[in-house]
């Protein structure tokens, strides 16, 4: 094959293939190119593509001709410009992808913008990379985004990093300067607790030195070229040997299409799952066993491991919704409402203390707020700022976050896929982060109690799903809360009655009845409140297990106790109805009423809520 390419300055050992037919499909690796604006990322990418013969025929000549015509000096970066915005501004705005190959594997290059304005695009590109090349201009040295990008790569969990000190031609291949930058950058990374990059390579992207071929002008450098360094990197080992994590993505039943399988779909993020496995759904503590592994146009499997977007059916049907993590009885994920996280904020609107946001982690989404700002790190410099009350755009922060209800997760260290999250503000992803540790909340002990009880619960011959099919609804707890005298009891009674008349097995559990009997031995002092709540929840547990929609009303247990009730009843849906004559909408409740509404209206609203939460089987 004839190619007319740039003459090489030197050519010692070349690792790139001349695009020979490869044994396909070959291994593929995503790499991201990051660094401060104008440090030469796009030139480096352009040159790599040219030197590895990855450009369409005639592209190089065409761009050169165009440059001659317009009187602009030719730049390798022009080879990448796809969009007129970027051509106009001469900077990379969004991550573009290009492809090249070596003998070892195919690479996808993600060229990330270096301008601070486009940090969200840099993150989007870097988050999908398996290795990174960070470019630093030899003349300018370490700049703001050299540091910020370095910090973010470490936060994103990318530890295969090459630092290219670029434009060495402009500093006459000065070794001392190279070593000075290397030392300064290593020092910065160690101060923020990041591990040092694997390689520092002096390059000239413009002249193609130490990219594909060794530099002849920098004889003092004995390390690998950029391509050799990249080829020395490894793909992440398969996660099949780790603990099982399969977040439930959806539950499918295509009955109308004549398919009766009830398939729990999701991707096995780590570990493996086998037919016959006893599996636990976290945080609900529900237990079943794997009956089959389902797939379309594929051989039937009895075991499936990390990486597969699969579907399973269960031996005992249980009511499962999206967001639960499938794991085993031991080695399950953490469950809490609180965790410590490192986060990068990308939105123009700051991340505020008092506001509620949407957390998206694996397949769960849940209201979340900042419980505490531990510190804000200025990633562009070193050191941290304390005492800030909000997280601004491009800030990196260590926070404690609190979700409204408990979620299942891992630390990022333990499991990447279940240990990282994004925060949504309005319609937009506003920031993202990784979980550093699970934090205990006040319900930890009750959660442990519930887990022990649920894992050892002796089941009768009729399971919950069978009851639900007979009754045409699942069990649920509808809790009326509000001050004494607002009319909770009256409304609850009416709701119980009309739900019953519409065919729902409803039962009103009045707190007074529990006080009279189950709690008769307790003398009420403040310290016994948690015991009162515990007993209430355990009584409700039995009624829920029997399949009823429990409508509860009590003055003794209020909104403040909700978290405890929930910790004790992780496997049943709970709906909170606040009765407040001032109709102050409470974000913690599912519905707020004034107590003055017509009974029929209240029943209608609650039925709607039951349908929305899939309690009523339609």
């Amino acid at each position, binding site marked *: 094959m004839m190619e007319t390419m740039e003459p090489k300055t030197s050519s010692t050992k070349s690792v790139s293939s001349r695009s020979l037919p490869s044994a*396909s499909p070959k291994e593929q690796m995503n790499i991201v190119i990051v660094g401060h604006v104008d440090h030469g990322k796009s030139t480096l990418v352009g040159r790599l593509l040219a030197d590895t013969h990855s450009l369409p025929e005639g592209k190089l000549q065409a761009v050169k001709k165009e440059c001659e015509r317009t009187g602009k000096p030719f730049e390798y970066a022009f080879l990448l410009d796809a969009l007129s915005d970027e051509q106009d501004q001469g900077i990379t705005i*969004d991550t573009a992808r*290009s492809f090249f190959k070596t003998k070892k594997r195919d690479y996808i290059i993600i060229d990330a913008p270096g301008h601070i304005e486009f940090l969200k695009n840099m993150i989007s590109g870097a988050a999908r990379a398996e290795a990174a090349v960070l470019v630093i201009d030899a003349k300018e040295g370490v700049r703001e985004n050299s540091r910020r990008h370095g910090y973010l790569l470490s936060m994103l969990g990318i530890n295969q990093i090459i630092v290219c000190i670029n434009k060495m031609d402009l500093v006459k291949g000065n070794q001392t300067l190279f070593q000075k930058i290397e030392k300064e950058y290593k020092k910065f990374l160690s101060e923020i607790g990041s591990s040092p990059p694997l390689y520092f390579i002096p390059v000239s992207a413009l002249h193609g030195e130490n990219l594909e071929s060794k530099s002849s002008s920098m004889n003092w450098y004995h390390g690998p070229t950029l391509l050799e360094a990249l080829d020395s990197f490894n793909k992440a080992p398969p996660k099949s040997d780790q603990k099982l994590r399969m977040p439930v993505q959806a539950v499918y039943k295509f009955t109308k299409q004549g398919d009766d399988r009830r*398939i729990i*779909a999701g991707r096995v993020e780590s570990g493996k799952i086998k037919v016959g496995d006893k599996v636990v759904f976290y945080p609900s503590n529900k237990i079943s066993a794997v009956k089959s592994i389902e797939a379309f146009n594929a051989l039937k499997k009895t075991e499936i491991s990390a990486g597969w977007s699969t579907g399973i059916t269960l031996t005992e049907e249980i009511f499962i919704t999206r967001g639960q993590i499938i794991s085993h009885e031991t080695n399950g994920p953490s469950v809490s409402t609180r965790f410590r996280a490192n986060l990068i904020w990308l939105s123009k609107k700051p991340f505020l203390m008092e506001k509620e946001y949407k957390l*998206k982690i694996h397949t769960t989404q849940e209201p979340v707020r900042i419980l505490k700002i531990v510190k804000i790190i200025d990633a562009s410099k070193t050191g941290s700022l304390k005492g800030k009350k909000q997280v601004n755009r491009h800030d990196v922060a260590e926070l404690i976050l609190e979700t409204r209800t408990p979620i299942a997760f891992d630390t990022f260290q333990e499991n990447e896929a279940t240990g990282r999250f994004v925060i949504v503000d309005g319609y937009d992803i506003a920031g993202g982060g990784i979980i550093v540790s699970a934090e205990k909340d006040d319900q930890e002990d009750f959660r442990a109690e519930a887990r022990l009880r649920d894992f050892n619960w002796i089941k009768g011959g009729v399971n919950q799903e069978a009851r639900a099919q007979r009754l045409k609804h699942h069990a649920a707890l509808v809790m009326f809360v509000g001050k004494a005298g607002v009319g909770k009891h009256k409304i609850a009674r009416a709701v119980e009655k009309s739900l019953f008349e519409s065919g729902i097995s409803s039962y009103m559990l009045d707190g007074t009845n529990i006080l009279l009997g189950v709690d008769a031995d307790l003398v009420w002092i403040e310290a016994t409140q948690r015991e009162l709540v515990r007993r209430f929840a355990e009584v409700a547990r039995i009624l829920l297990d029997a399949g009823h929609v429990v409508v509860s009303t009590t003055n003794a247990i209020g909104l403040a106790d909700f978290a405890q009730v929930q910790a004790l009843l992780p496997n049943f849906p709970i709906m909170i109805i606040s009765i407040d004559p001032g109709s102050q909408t409470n974000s913690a409740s599912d519905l707020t009423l004034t107590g003055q509404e017509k009974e029929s209206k209240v029943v209608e609203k609650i039925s709607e809520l039951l349908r929305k939460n899939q309690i009523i089987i339609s």
Partner: protein
Amino acid sequence: MELLDQLEQQSVYILRESFRHFERLCMLWSIGKDSTVLLWLARKAFFGHVPFPLVHIDTSYKIPEMIAYRDRLSMEYKLTMIVGQNVKALEFGKTFPATQALPEGDPNKISRVECCGLLKKDALANTLNGTWPRKKLNLKTGQYEIDPDKQPYHGVIVGARADEEGSRSKERYFSPRDKNSLWDIGDQPPEFWNQFKTDFAPGTHVRIHPLLDWTELHIWEYIKREKIPTVSLYYDQGNGTRYRSLGCAPCQSPIKSTAKNVDEIIAELKSGKLKNIAERSGRLQDGKHGLEELRREGYM
């Protein structure tokens, strides 16, 4: 895990996310190899079913075999098949083929790019938002009928690949389009860790790209592995030419190739014979910035 499996599994994950988050979801089907692979992946994701409608924008200039293949597969897979068209432009002859004979400079002459704008971009936008009538295939009779559903689609699954051309390489998996179907390339939302843009303002929609990471070679290797049926236009029928990319007949020229089946296409792609020729080179409307402008304005 093999590369084709990795690509397949990520696409399946994306398809399931879109089905979960978009109540009004559809998939564009151009009958070409990419969107046909996409349709196959949907059946993988939903265990043999396709739980959302497929939308085809019929310019009336498609090669007849494509339409026959569309309807045959729709019946076989029991698809909800929706067809949209710019009926007015066709009626008044406002198309490139209809005005081709007019002299240069005639104000009524419609260029190739303008024609794409009318028959594809406008037809797509108005079919998606429900302004123009949609036709739906009756699976009992095999005939198309006016679809009573006029609700807009909020999630639109598209078979675009990043390696096709420049502007596609900057797409997200979930890429928002505003009320006028415009794509703001300069200000795209962040997307990482498989957390996608699934919240959207009323009146806007999100384009979903499950094939973003696939290349042309992956598509053919997957067609081979899965034995996916494709139209014969992709293969040389004996005259030494075949289509590499399918569009409208008047703006589509075949390439010189004697590849007669999937294996030969794969061999051809790997041999490097086509390596230096852009995939869409036979698409005569692509021009300098033509496609990029069309794409910003809502073209797929």
